[in-house]
């Protein structure tokens, strides 16, 4: 259940921002989660409510922007989009892919009062 640790990471960031920027309530936490990152958005949403209770983020809505997985195909010499790590290149069906994007797990912005 590393989702719990990730949610604790999110709350840690929200609490630090609250101290720095002086807000008392968070309405929305907006995340950017890549298709090839280490977590499924549904699992994060499931854990977030439990971890956020009794913190400044209590009751906040979690919004997740999904970013696509991208890879460089060494055989086609071009950038392609993939949904999973084990997927072949959509152009040549080969597996000589180097992942170039979609691994992000970031807090993008907060809507606060």
């Amino acid at each position, binding site marked *: *259940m590393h989702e719990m640790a990730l949610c604790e*990471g*999110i709350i*840690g960031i929200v609490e630090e*921002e609250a101290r720095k920027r002086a807000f008392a309530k968070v309405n929305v936490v907006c995340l950017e989660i890549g298709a090839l990152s280490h977590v499924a958005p549904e699992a994060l949403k499931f854990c977030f409510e439990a971890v956020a209770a009794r913190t400044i983020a209590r009751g906040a809505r979690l919004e997740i922007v999904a970013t696509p997985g991208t890879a460089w195909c060494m055989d086609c010499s071009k950038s392609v989009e993939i949904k999973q790590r084990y997927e072949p290149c959509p152009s040549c069906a080969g597996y000589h892919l180097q992942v170039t994007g979609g691994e992000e797990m*970031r*807090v993008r*912005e907060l809507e606060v009062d």
Partner: protein
Amino acid sequence: MSSERIIQVERDILGKNDRLAADNRARFRADEVLVFNLVSSPGAGKTSLLVRAVSELKDSFPIGVIEGDQQTSNDAERIRATGVAAIQVNTGKGCHLDAAMVGEAYDRLPWLNGGLLFIENVGNLVCPAAFDLGEACKIVVFSTTEGEDKPLKYPDMFAASALMLINKIDLAPVLDFDLARTVEYARRVNPGIEVMTVSARTGEGFSAFYAWIRKRWAKLKQAERTAQG
């Protein structure tokens, strides 16, 4: 009037762990210690593999081991029986080691100046993939009893590892284990992954593994000398 406002944050969720991992990495570099993070599913044979490796390498290098498990100090005791220093980290309900745990465990080890540190992560092919501990690289231990398609089922871990050690190779004949298919699947998720077959029970394949370690160790020394000018 609503006081609602939007604050741009743009921070990595694992940023705190990554900063602590960077601190660990700087300490390992200062001590010239080569660090491997061993990951696998439970029962792949990480500890048996380590017991053999540290027994056979301890006359060549200062060696330390950090053992991660949810409970018990059984694994650290198995390592200590070889005469090598080991620190047990119990994660309780936690499913992975993080950089803070490794930093604290490293404080409790003797000085490994110019040596090797093996971190045996919690047996789990999912969560430890996300957590940088400051290691030089991850080594995924896969055993022949697990089924050839493990790399496809748990792609993140195989993508995050530099080396796949295929353990229990002595059992391959009775299992009808398909080595070529396993390697093909692993390279679908990580075209650059290196592969070696070993048996922690018989010792088969370990000399190649040690040669791989020595090569990486020599590279680290080379990099240090270049950095020092």
